């Protein structure tokens, strides 16, 4: 268990993010948001090395998010089972518990859904069968939020009115800057070198060379479209639960529980068990969706 808790998962995740940002910048020089699916198709098929850059961007982003989740799991394990901050284990120096502790954790907890949105907007920009459907579903879920739904949609997606413009701006700049703001306090303490994470870099490169990033053309005979892997559970849930409950309240509950656990002030055990139950429910829905 100690190897898991002390593993430098955050650093590995950050290196994958570096690769994702760099490959994303390369892709952005060719991507045309006025014809998004055509543009993705040309990148994949006729632009020299377009398929490689797409794969590198796709898989490095997947690695970033997966390693971020592992990092989060390691932090939770350290805090819950060892009653210690992960930074204490790695630096051997006590972490100052200042009055800003709550704000620090709140920002870090909020950075998780923002990272997820970064990934998700990338899926939408593909504008293939999965991306287009995912975008429209997200827009409709956001609009279903009482009072602020329309405003939030105009800031985050607004696909039906302005195509990919808002999504592109958010994927390229808005969400990245916001994520950076949320994690700045956390990351500025650490220095991550490419050399120390060569294995992750090699792994991402090899995977990108072997596998092709997915692209699914529209087809009139398709009767099942599966969303991004992290939203398969949500997709399944939306079949039986109202959008605002499945898409906003249920994920929001996970963030509340996570905040309560990492803050570790009170009701930590209840929040931890609640979090485990949440994960089990979401995994069950994901498995049902996977085998549909």
């Amino acid at each position: 268990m100690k190897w898991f808790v002390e593993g430098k998962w955050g650093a590995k995740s950050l290196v994958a993010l570096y690769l994702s940002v760099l490959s994303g910048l390369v892709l952005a020089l060719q991507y045309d948001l006025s014809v998004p699916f055509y543009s993705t198709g040309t990148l994949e098929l006729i632009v020299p090395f377009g398929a490689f850059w797409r794969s590198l961007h796709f898989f490095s982003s997947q690695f970033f998010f997966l390693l971020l989740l592992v990092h989060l799991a390691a932090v939770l394990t350290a805090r819950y089972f060892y009653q210690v901050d992960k930074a204490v284990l790695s630096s051997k120096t006590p972490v100052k518990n200042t009055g800003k502790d709550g704000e620090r954790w709140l920002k870090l907890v909020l950075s998780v859904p923002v990272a997820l949105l970064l990934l998700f907007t990338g899926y939408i920009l593909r504008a293939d069968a999965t991306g287009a459907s995912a975008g429209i579903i997200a827009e409709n879920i956001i609009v279903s939020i009482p009072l602020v739904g329309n405003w939030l949609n105009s800031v985050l997606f607004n696909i039906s009115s302005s195509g990919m413009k808002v999504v592109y701006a958010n994927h390229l700049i808005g969400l990245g800057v916001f994520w950076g703001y949320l994690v700045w306090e956390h990351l500025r303490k650490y220095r991550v070198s490419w050399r120390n994470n060569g294995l992750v870099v090699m792994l991402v490169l090899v995977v990108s060379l072997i596998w092709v990033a997915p692209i699914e053309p529209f087809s009139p005979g398709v009767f099942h479209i599966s969303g991004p892997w992290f939203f398969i559970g949500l997709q399944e849930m939306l079949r039986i639960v109202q959008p605002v409950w499945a898409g906003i309240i249920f994920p929001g509950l996970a963030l509340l529980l996570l905040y309560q656990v990492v803050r570790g002030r009170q009701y930590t055990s209840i929040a931890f068990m609640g979090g485990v139950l949440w994960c089990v429910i979401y995994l069950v829905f994901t498995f049902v969706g996977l085998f549909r």
Partner: protein
Amino acid sequence: MKTVTQKAEKDLVRPGRRVFLANAELVVKFLAFFALLLPLARFLGFTPPAKPKFFEVNKVLKEGGFIIEADFILFDIANEPIAVSRTCTHLGCKLNYHELEGVLICPCHKSQFGKDGKRLAGPARLDLPIFTVEKIGGTDITGYIVAIS
């Protein structure tokens, strides 16, 4: 003629009248303010229906047949063309037509609709919009114009 002192004494005796008048004035101001806000809110909150887009289909439906376009499916039901929207009323995914079962199916959350746009099953609650169709060519039909609203 009442002196100033007498008037002040009277006001002291009946303070409730002043308070009532002051409150009434406040209420009237509030009502006037909201009376002005209401038309403004109604004006700003109204979204005019989008201008219909006319889409020309240069094919002819076979008896009981269908034609799939990007935004609608054109069915021949009892020798009459019916254009049904392909946008699912649940969360907006693009519906596909299952020819064997004769139903439109949402690939995202499995809502099902009949060829007449009526909701049959799944999480969607509303029927599909039906678009107006005009035949081109009079008695010898050469195609259709569908007004997508």
